């Protein structure tokens, strides 16, 4: 099976056959990860650059591990903030990297649109590891994989993404990917954290966390951070926790069949209590393992695409 897409910029517009192929291929790699020797030679001779303009240890390690398991040669390039402030423009950096004959670029950037920009200036296959508050497609794919692994399907499920939707790159990718696979997606959070017109994407908005828990099959709980401008979206973390936090009490009262995901890192006692984060409803560590398999799948499918 080969993908119709050449790059993975986001899940917006990616056909369901492609998503299915990525998820199915990830299953094979998931089995590889259980073997004593976890390495396959599929991307031998391919060069992948991990271009991280924003700190994200977890995502970078997950990609790096996936690349190593596929026997690719990898280069890490990390920088933060605007490239031009430091003398070299982003485009020049890319041209330099390009001159080293790389096959794929995994990119994380604070500005939305950078992966798309890369497809215009580079011949390499581009994988978005998170751009601004736009998309983070491999995160959504691993979420989908993990849900499917646990519940056996995606079609017909109701999934609610909870937290700071406006500043999240995970939310949009979840919405696009899950909707393509036939699931219903909703969001829940204080209205200051819900971006304008999101309902135009066919997304229901909850502001009552209990209702969100009782009316959904899956909760994808996002990490809450106090923004630079503390106090402008939410007054305090305590208030957020009291009104939107996922607690064992809320789950037991509203929906004991709920499945809980969290992209990490967890802010214990804020968006989720430790009791829930370590408890029976969640699959947070499975997500981490599945993340490697999903990234292997994406790298393999794009890297061997004819």
């Amino acid at each position, binding site marked *: 099976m080969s993908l119709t897409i050449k790059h993975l910029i986001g899940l917006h517009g990616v056909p369901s056959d492609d998503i299915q192929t990525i998820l199915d291929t990830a299953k094979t790699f998931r089995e590889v990860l259980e073997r004593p020797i976890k390495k396959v030679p599929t991307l031998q001779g391919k060069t992948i650059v991990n271009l991280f303009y924003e700190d994200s240890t977890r995502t970078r390690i997950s990609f790096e591990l996936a690349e190593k398991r596929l026997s690719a040669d990898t280069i890490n390039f990390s920088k933060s903030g605007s490239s031009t402030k430091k003398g070299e*423009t982003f485009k020049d950096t890319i041209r330099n990297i390009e001159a080293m004959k790389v096959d794929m670029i995994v990119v994380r950037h604070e500005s939305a649109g950078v992966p798309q920009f890369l497809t215009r200036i580079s011949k390499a296959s581009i994988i978005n590891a998170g751009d601004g508050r*736009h998309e983070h497609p491999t995160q959504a794919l691993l979420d989908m994989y993990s849900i499917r692994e646990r519940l056996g399907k995606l079609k017909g499920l109701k999934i609610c993404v909870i937290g700071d939707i406006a500043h999240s*790159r995970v939310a949009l990718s979840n919405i696009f990917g899950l909707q393509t696979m036939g699931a219903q997606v909703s969001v829940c959070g204080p209205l200051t954290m819900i971006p304008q017109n999101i309902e135009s994407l066919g997304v229901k908005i909850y502001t009552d966390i209990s209702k969100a828990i009782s009316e959904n099959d899956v909760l994808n709980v996002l990490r809450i951070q106090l923004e630079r401008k503390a106090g402008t979206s939410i007054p305090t973390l305590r208030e957020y926790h009291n009104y939107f936090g996922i607690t064992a009490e809320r789950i037991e009262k509203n929906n004991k069949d709920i499945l809980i995901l969290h992209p990490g890192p967890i802010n214990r006692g804020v968006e989720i209590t430790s009791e829930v984060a370590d408890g029976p409803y969640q699959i947070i560590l499975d997500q981490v393992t599945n993340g490697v398999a999903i990234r292997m799948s994406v790298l393999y499918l794009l890297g061997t695409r004819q």
Partner: protein
Amino acid sequence: MKILLKNLNLLNPEQKINHESDLLIEDGKIIELGSNITSIDSQTKTFDFTGMYCVPGLVDMHVHLREPGREDEETIETGSNAAAGGGFTEIACMPNTNPAIDSAEVVKLIKDKAKNHLVNVHPIGAVSVNRAGEGLSPIAELVDAGAVAFSDDGVAVKTSALLKSAMEYCLMFDKTIIDHCEEICFSDGAMNEGFISTLLGLPPLPSVSEDLIVARDILMAEYTGGKIHIAHISSKKSVELVRNAKGKGIKVTAEATPHHFTLTDDVLKNYDTNFKMSPPLRTEEDVQAIISGLKDGTIDCIASDHAPHSVEEKEMEFIYAPNGILGLETELALCLNELVSKNHLTLDDLVLKLSINPRKILNLPIPKFETNELANLTIFDPEKIWTVDVSKFKSKSKNSPFDKRLLKGASVAVINNSKMFFENKFTDI
């Protein structure tokens, strides 16, 4: 030297002129009008302009020339050349240069560099020293040196107290404050807030950020009796605010840019920074409101907000790239395409918006088609079809979102200051 311009459609709504005529110009002055001009000699150069319109020279009252400070992006000369190429004989330049136009010396420097050009360059002085929003610039000195209006463009006049002072002070000179209406606390947004910003994951800038300052400015104009001009109006609500204020007799005027009546935020879908400007492109509803504002006179004039930026800066990541696009060389054609061809404005209306009204706002003399008047005119062909090619622009920068666009209507010639720009060259006449 005499030149004879034949078969023009002469149009000047201010003089109620709208008929065919020839024009004889000697040493830069109109010496004869009519259809049977005889006082020509063998040296007289004759031009046949059949089918073309001749109007009082166009004015763009919102241009960024970048000199002094960023001569790599535009200079007074290249910007003036771009203006002439686009059909303008007069421009007003914004004070966000480095140093800012906050001293008589800078006003003089600009006027001095511009003095031998066809295009008249009118400096707009900064409202506050270094546009920092603290103390007033030496407004009287700037007026004496030749500043035609005051603005801290790039940002709004920072505080209501400063705005009040500036308006009261400017009353003494009958000068307008031109405000870039944007509430600074929202300015980390990179595009209009709405469905598209949600879809693209770019930091949103709500249209209410503009409306708040427009409302403030109108209230201050009413309170002080001063004159306020709303630069590059872009939101539906702001148009309504100006319309209501005008109804009450408040001294408010407004301009709109061609991009705000031509494009919506939908074009940002491939994150092209050549569509990034402030105020940002908004929705179809806003575009329609701008057009109706132009139709009913709520919006007095059209100005380009010509904002040259280097390729390196525009090629930055979207959230870091600077705001602004070129305008001078596509402005007239976009007006003809989007407003006249679509029957929103008549050619008479267009001349008001691009030539007469900006002069009234800035208190500049309006050129007349009369003997002994200085020839300050634009000749354009409303039917000429051409494709925008930024590589041929006279501007030093290339950041136009309209590159490769097919447009109908173009400037053919401009005449001012005893100079003519025709067929891509300047000649003394």
